């Protein structure tokens, strides 16, 4: 559809050809195939887009080249495991899957508690390739899903840019988003997470909605509803759409931009999108029952009121009467809406906002109320440096783009401005939401770049024309031609424009260099395999995680239950194929708190907890030998806090000395004897980790440990990986009573 409308649009865009005769001579033999200007432009545009498409894909392959084709991080392992299940057992089994391998003894209804979009997408790609006789492994499909969708996102960004500004902005947006680190961070090969397809779905929904608002076409609105459906099926971030779109509509209503196009676009998108979204089991009836979705419903009703008023106004033809009617209607509408909301909330039909939603609006909320959200590093408020790191020059182009948007306010630019501003706020609240803001930032920056470059080049062109005409006709005509945009009093305008253009290209090239560097250095490490530089500059690989998980998989009974901190839950079930007590799904805070309590109790107390949970093995991550800092000792305070949040016997001050967290001789006695400390440092006191340091020197914290004589009573060392990063302990059966 988009392709069809292109030629007509590009006609207006097309720049003048240099010389038609030249073209004639070069294509003399293909007279019928001679390229017209607009065809040239089309060819150029398509080849640029094609290159960007490929670039977006290959820029994300650093990790495959540097490490291997593998799944990264934590959550992707769950997604991979479920995708594997889906491709092996089929969709119905997947939908009805009760997973007894996690959250022992509770289990987890996987089909009803996940967003299936990613898995279904990967499985569809996999089945299609199989059908086309490409016998790829499902892992390869999963690894390359994110880059593939990133490529698709660039195309959507192009069309979006074209819709809100022009094709030039669209092309720049495509290029910017293809390599923007903020997006690459979540879409490198192997980062098989919901966000990988969700950003594509998000941008697609927005684009189709803006297109629907611009055209008033039901078809686009329908497309937008399906885009929304895909987004809902893929990621919980759909809440952003269902709140941003009504907010946008509200702003349009308030600013007096209500139109039939808007009415059609929003109603169709909302109603169909809502009905479709209800088909996702995890979302269910939230669209009509949860407070987070009520805004959309309110705006929907408001729309009807607007339409009704419009109709009444048309029928009445009397301003005075209409004013009265307006007052009555608006008051009663607000009243009815307010009462409905009040009754719904009071009766519990409409659920109040969830803690996650609050923590988005208020950066300090999670820290005080939900330690489990606050404990995740990617949920921390964003530092300025990470904005700079992820956006680089876009951070400066963004305000410039906003300026251009405000200069040319349309329904579309209002949308992108609102999208940019709201998402940037959320990006400031949580590091991971930089991702959501990235498309908006890229689009707005693209407008800035495109508009600037266009202005500058047109300046150059007019100047040329001026000098050409000026030589023949004199100064008089130059005044006339420059009155549109130029101030002829500046003598170095042309040079200035050239300098500025060079500056822009310099900035853009710095951006490209920065993006490549960030991608290769920061965002392409799988985090499951650690790499370090050796003393001779050689690369040392610490593959301890997989060593431990594979050991679990091969050498423990198949029904063994593993207790570990929740971070490693997904990885243990996916790679170790063993049952875990808690995992990254964090749906049951009490269960996690129980594990936190066990880890922070004395061994005999912990033993009772572990016995009650049927735990066979305990797994801890320890970086004292290698200097790996994100280990369980450094996460320990969060375990204490989360455990203490539910079980008041665990008190944070017991583990601190003067408010300081220590593991050396000065540490608190409770700290030195809690289970986590014992398991991490068991027999560590006998080991010399660094030359010239006493035995038991913890390299991650740079201290000599305080308790070197650790005796375990109810547990025994079952396995420790070669660099000590993962340590596994067997829980002994209870001794016979005498």
């Amino acid at each position, binding site marked *: 559809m988009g392709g*069809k409308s292109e030629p007509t649009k590009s006609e207006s865009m097309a720049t003048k050809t240099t010389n038609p005769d030249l073209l004639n001579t070069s294509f003399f033999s293909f007279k019928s195939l001679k390229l017209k200007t607009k065809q040239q432009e089309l060819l150029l545009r398509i080849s640029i887009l094609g290159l960007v498409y490929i670039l977006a894909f290959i820029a994300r392959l650093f990790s495959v080249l540097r*490490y*291997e084709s*593998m799944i990264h991080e934590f959550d992707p392992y769950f997604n991979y495991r479920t995708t594997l299940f889906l491709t092996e057992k089929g969709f119905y089994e997947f939908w009805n899957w009760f997973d007894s391998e996690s959250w022992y003894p509770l289990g987890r209804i996987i089909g009803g508690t996940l967003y299936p979009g990613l898995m279904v997408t990967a499985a569809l790609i996999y089945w299609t390739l199989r059908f086309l*006789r*490409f*016998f790829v492994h499902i892992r390869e499909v999963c690894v390359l899903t994110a880059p593939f969708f990133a490529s698709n996102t660039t195309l959507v960004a192009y069309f979006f840019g074209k819709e809100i500004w022009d094709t030039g902005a669209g092309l720049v947006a495509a290029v910017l988003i293809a390599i923007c680190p903020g997006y690459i961070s979540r879409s490198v090969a192997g980062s098989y997470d919901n966000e990988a397809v969700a950003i594509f779905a998000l941008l697609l929904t927005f684009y189709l909605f803006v297109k629907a608002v611009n055209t008033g076409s039901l078809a686009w609105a329908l497309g937008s509803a399906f885009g929304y459906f895909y987004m809902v099926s893929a990621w919980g971030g759909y809440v952003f759409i269902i709140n941003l779109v009504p907010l946008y509509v509200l702003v349009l209503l308030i600013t007096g931009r209500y139109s039939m196009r808007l009415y059609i676009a929003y109603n169709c998108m909302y109603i169909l999108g809502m009905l479709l979204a209800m088909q996702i089991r995890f979302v269910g009836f939230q669209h009509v029952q949860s407070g987070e979705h009520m805004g959309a419903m309110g705006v929907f009703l408001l729309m009807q009121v607007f339409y009704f008023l419009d109709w009444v106004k048309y029928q009445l033809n009397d301003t005075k009467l209409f004013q009265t009617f307006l007052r009555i209607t608006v008051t009663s509408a607000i009243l009815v809406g307010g009462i409905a909301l009040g009754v719904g909330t009071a009766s519990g039909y409409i659920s109040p906002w969830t803690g996650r939603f609050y923590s988005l609006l208020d950066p300090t909320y999670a820290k005080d109320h939900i330690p489990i959200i606050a404990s995740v590093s990617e949920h921390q408020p964003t530092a300025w440096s990470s904005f700079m790191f992820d956006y680089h020059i876009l951070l400066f182009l963004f305000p410039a783009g906003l300026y251009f948007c405000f200069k040319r306010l349309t329904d579309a630019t209002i949308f992108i401005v609102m999208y940019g501003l709201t998402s940037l706020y959320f990006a400031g609240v949580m590091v991971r939401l930089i991702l959501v803001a990235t498309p908006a930032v890229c689009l707005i920056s693209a407008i800035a770049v495109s508009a600037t470059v266009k202005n500058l080049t047109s300046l150059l062109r007019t100047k040329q024309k001026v000098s050409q005409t000026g030589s023949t006709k004199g100064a008089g005509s130059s005044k006339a031609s420059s009155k549109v945009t130029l101030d002829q009093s500046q003598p170095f305008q042309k040079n200035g424009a050239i300098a500025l253009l060079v500056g822009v290209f310099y900035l853009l090239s710095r951006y490209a260099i920065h993006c490549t560097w960030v991608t290769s250095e920061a965002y392409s490490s799988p985090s499951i*395999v650690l790499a370090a530089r050796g003393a001779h500059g050689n690369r040392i*690989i610490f*593959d301890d995680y*997989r*060593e431990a*998980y*594979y*050991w679990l*998989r*091969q*050498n423990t009974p198949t029904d063994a239950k593993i207790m570990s901190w929740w971070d490693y839950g997904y990885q243990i079930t996916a*790679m170790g194929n063993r049952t875990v007590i808690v995992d990254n799904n964090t749906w049951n805070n009490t269960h996690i708190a129980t594990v936190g309590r066990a880890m922070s109790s004395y061994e005999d107390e912990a033993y009772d907890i572990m016995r009650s949970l049927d735990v066979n093995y305990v797994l801890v991550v320890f970086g004292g030998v290698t200097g790996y800092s994100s280990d369980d000792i450094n996460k320990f305070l969060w375990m204490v806090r989360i455990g203490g949040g539910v079980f008041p016997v665990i008190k944070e001050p017991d583990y601190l000395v003067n408010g300081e967290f220590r593991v050396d001789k000065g540490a608190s006695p409770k700290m030195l004897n809690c289970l986590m400390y014992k398991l991490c440092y068991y*027999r560590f006191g*006998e*080991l010399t980790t660094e030359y010239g340091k006493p035995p038991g020197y913890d390299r991650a914290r740079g201290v000599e440990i305080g308790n070197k004589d650790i005796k375990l009573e109810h547990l*025994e*060392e*079952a*396995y*420790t*990986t*070669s660099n*000590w990063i993962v340590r596994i302990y067997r829980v002994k059966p209870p001794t016979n009573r005498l």
Partner: protein
Amino acid sequence: MAARIWIFSVVVAVFLSISAFSSAQDLQIVNAERRIDLSSHIVKAFLTLKVENIGKDPAAEMLLAFPPTQIKNLAMVQALAITGKKKKKTYLPLDVKPTEQPDAPNDTGYYRVKFISPLGPGETVSLEVLYILTHSLEPFPVEITQSESQLVYYHDSAVILSPYHIKQQTTFVKTPTTRVESFTSVEPANRAGKEIKYGPYENRASYSYTPVIIHFENNSPFAVVEELVREIEISHWGSLQITENYRLTHGGARHKGVFSRVDYQSKRSVSGASSFNALLAVLPPRVNSVYYRDNIGNISTSHLRTGFRKSELEFEPRYPLFGGWSATFVIGYRVPLEDYLFEASDGRRYLNFTFGCPLVETIVNKLTLKVVLPEGSKDPSAVLPFTVNQELEVKYSYLDIVGRTVVVLQKDNVVPTHNVPFQVYYTFNPIYMLAEPFMLVTAFFLVFVASLAYVHIDLNIVRK
């Protein structure tokens, strides 16, 4: 007495049923020497026999007998005939086949050795027999801790089990270390260093059996591949892709209790003596694109040395293997086609490749070797020097339509001596090589034609 009756009945039965062949008692073994090598977990026994025909008819073959405990673990029996004297000795391989004997006493198993030429009455022949036993070392104690050394039992007979009368025999047993806890003494028997000598024993009747148990230390890696699936995919575009799926276990005494990394790191000589960490695979020369991985990704601890005669891949599992621990992994590599694929005189092509397992000193409980022939090949047939189960299946790979014929060869109890060449013959028309490129070209062509058509067709209902 019972034995006598047994033998008598065997003799009668054999004599009556297959009177064309010489009966058992027509042969006797003048001199027998047996050397049993227990230094690894693969037990190798060398028999030197001097056989004499004391009957009236020429004997075409002789029988080798094995007790039932050994027959199920017997991986291979080879026999050589020695001709010539002293320095001019030449060895000729003999045909050895497992055989059934009716009324075999106590489930004794037999192998039949066919002489080069029938042994005339009064003639003698010297034979060398090699047989290999797997899973014949029984760990005792069954479970050991990390610091303990592995002790095993070996059960055998002090005298050679044979359907023939043996005039004189000696057995030497070689143990890996000097540490021998105990051994059953059957006079005359003595031990010196790493060697236990049983015999010489004179004039033992047929089917004599004197059980002995040797209890000794054996810390050699008990690397047992429970299942190995090797897939050899032939591509006529120039390479042979080999993928080997291993399920490796430590078949020795089970590990019990703690695994301590501190001890394993610092006291390597005493701690984990029975465990093993390094493995060596002997791969073909000119091997390339070698990979070593498992279900969850690459394993980074491997080292490849390529050479003219062979390549060696040194690798380590993700963790050291203690008794009872197992590891699964995949090794894959590619070799140039021209080294292994030839054209036979009748126009057929044949693959000449090595059977068995590339890992040194390992037992394979179940080996499945799949030769994936290129799509369109016909009439496959495999030629092997020993019997294996054969079947055909179909595999679909990239861009296959009818699928590729796969010759599946399956054999249990494989030891390194099975690493001998085998051949798979098939006919193949080279025109099939072009099928897949042609399909791709067609697909791309159709895409371009379709986009060409799309650009030129107006799909609008209303003309703009």
